[in-house]
């Protein structure tokens, strides 16, 4: 198992290198050159010359790449054109918000999707099955921001059950954010109403974001359970007289989980990119919204750092998925 894990982690390296090359080229591919990327379009010639010297843009490419790698490794991603703050700080500040949002969304998707898919498979052809299929189709087809608007309109504007935007009611929190994870902050500072407030701000965006992964997870769970239930070894378990709960748990689910876990990993990518849209709809202060604003303002240092950051998270999550495969499927780890 350890060897398997080590091999998988090593495979990460070329991907990370590749990503860094991709981003490196990205900035230099901009019409107007990397100077535009760093300074924006309205830079004075003096500043352009300054930047050129500072970043060594007149030096050969491989030297530039090396210094780029250096700065990446020291977490220096430059300065945001719009806010004039170091990009790293801006991202770090907003990172917890996106984490809260995406983790909540994935929890919803998994907690609802897997049981739903399972029940749909067991009651194949019933109204539950058909309803879940219709529901998941709808979930796949609705763009996440459209759903966001729908939820916002119905539950926030019309019914008033939830706030329409933001992460918190600042009066409640009085700016005490030790961890940056607002729900946690409320608990940690002994301010439960604030925690609840943070949760209320979290629910609508999380629901909107969760819909697509939920739909896919339901579908794959249903398909996987159906396939596994028809396998010979399930028949063997029945012939051995094992009870239904045991067969479901030990034989069906344990084998059905494999493709489900893969899908969960892939869906994280959709969650991360969906966060950009959802956070915008709900003015939720996370990396997604920051990235969306940066796109609008052509703030390239932020755009490039934001995408790189989210991509790395995606890669790490998929690594986790790969490793968990090793735990779940002995055929993989014993080769």
């Amino acid at each position: 198992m350890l060897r398997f894990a080590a091999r998988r982690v090593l495979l990460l390296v070329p991907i990370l290198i590749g990503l860094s090359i991709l981003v490196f080229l990205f900035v230099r591919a901009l019409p107007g050159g990397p100077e535009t990327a760093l300074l924006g379009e309205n830079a004075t010639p003096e500043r352009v010359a300054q930047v050129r010297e500072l970043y060594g843009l007149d030096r050969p490419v491989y030297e530039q790449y090396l210094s780029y790698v250096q700065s990446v490794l020291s977490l220096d991603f430059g300065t945001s054109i719009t806010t004039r703050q170091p990009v790293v700080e801006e991202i770090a500040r907003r990172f917890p918000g996106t984490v809260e949002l995406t983790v909540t969304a994935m929890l919803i998707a998994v907690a609802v999707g897997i049981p739903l898919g399972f029940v749909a498979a067991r009651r194949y052809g019933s109204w539950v099955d058909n309803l879940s299929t219709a529901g998941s189709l709808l979930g796949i087809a609705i763009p996440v921001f459209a759903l966001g608007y729908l939820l916002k309109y119905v539950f926030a504007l019309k019914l008033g059950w939830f706030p329409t935007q933001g992460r918190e009611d600042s009066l409640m929190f009085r700016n005490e954010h030790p961890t940056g994870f607002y729900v946690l902050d409320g608990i940690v500072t002994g301010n439960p109403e604030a925690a609840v407030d943070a949760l209320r701000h979290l629910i609508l965006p999380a629901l909107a974001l969760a819909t697509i992964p939920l739909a896919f997870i339901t579908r794959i769970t249903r398909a996987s359970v159906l396939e596994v239930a028809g396998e010979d070894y399930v028949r063997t378990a029945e012939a051995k007289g094992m009870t239904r709960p045991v067969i479901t748990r030990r034989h069906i689910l344990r084998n059905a989980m494999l493709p489900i876990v893969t899908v969960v990993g892939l869906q994280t990518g959709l969650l991360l990119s969906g966060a950009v849209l959802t956070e915008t709809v709900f003015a939720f202060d996370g990396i997604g919204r920051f990235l969306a604003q940066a796109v609008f303002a052509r703030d390239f240092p932020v755009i490039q750092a934001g995408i790189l950051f989210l991509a790395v998270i995606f890669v790490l999550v998929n690594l986790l998925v790969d490793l968990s495969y090793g735990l779940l499927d002995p055929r993989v780890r014993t080769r």
Partner: protein
Amino acid sequence: MSLSGAEAQETELSQPEEARGGLLRDAFRRLRRSPQAIVGATLVLLFVFVAIFAPVLAPYSPTAQDLSQVRPGNFPGPSAEHLLGLDQLGRDELSRIIFGARYSLIIGVVSVTIGATVGMALGLLAGAFGGWVDSLVMRGADIMLAVPSLLLAIGIAALLGRSITSVMIAIGVVNIPVFARLLRGAMLSQRESDYALASRSLGVTKGRVVLKHVFPNSLAPVIVQATLALATAITEAAGLAFLGLGSPDPSIPEWGRMLAETNAYLASEPLLALWPGLAIVISVLGFYLLGEALREALDPKLRR
């Protein structure tokens, strides 16, 4: 009761053309019977029809403004003359939705075509040559796939500037690794199949085997993927437009941007958000259903 003395058994190794013809006929038959396919195909045809005949179908011009009826915070809703009402600049919503179909269709088709052709070319090279070509292409695909597709598209579109072309290129590029992998994988499995080996042992050159047999038989998953990619492309294009990455011209009725513009008026005119959203859902659903139905129909494992 008839009974032939020595019945020739149907061989498993039928000629590839026969196998392909049989597969297509089978697939078509299955498609006709599947409700998923019928609904999907209907929605897709509806979408394409509306897009193509937009100028004829739309009652008004999508850009003509009639500000006389519009007051801040109060736009006329659906009426007899304007079935879906007017938007914030007094334009007929229905016409805008109808013309929006054109943009979605064009963007979808062009971007998937770009992604599919470049992707297939790379996949063909990788599958045909193997070796370092294969590794290079696959590593490149892996790296591109390490970035979530919408984010990659955002990055590329931001790079290329605000225009519909950059959206099409961005989504196209994002699709390249998927098609490359797909074709390469299909070719790899076909290459080792019995008929390919048999052909080669008969002296048919490798190139011919690849071009005339392996490649055509690898197309089924590509067709499925292209249909599903169209569904995703429409959503992604809407997402990019939502973020301001489409055409900078505010009069262009792109569904994603129309949705973005309604944010300010959501409380008073929620319907304006409903129509573009509904339009996107219907078109995406159509391609998705059709793609899934095609996948089931073309799956050789399901042949009886």
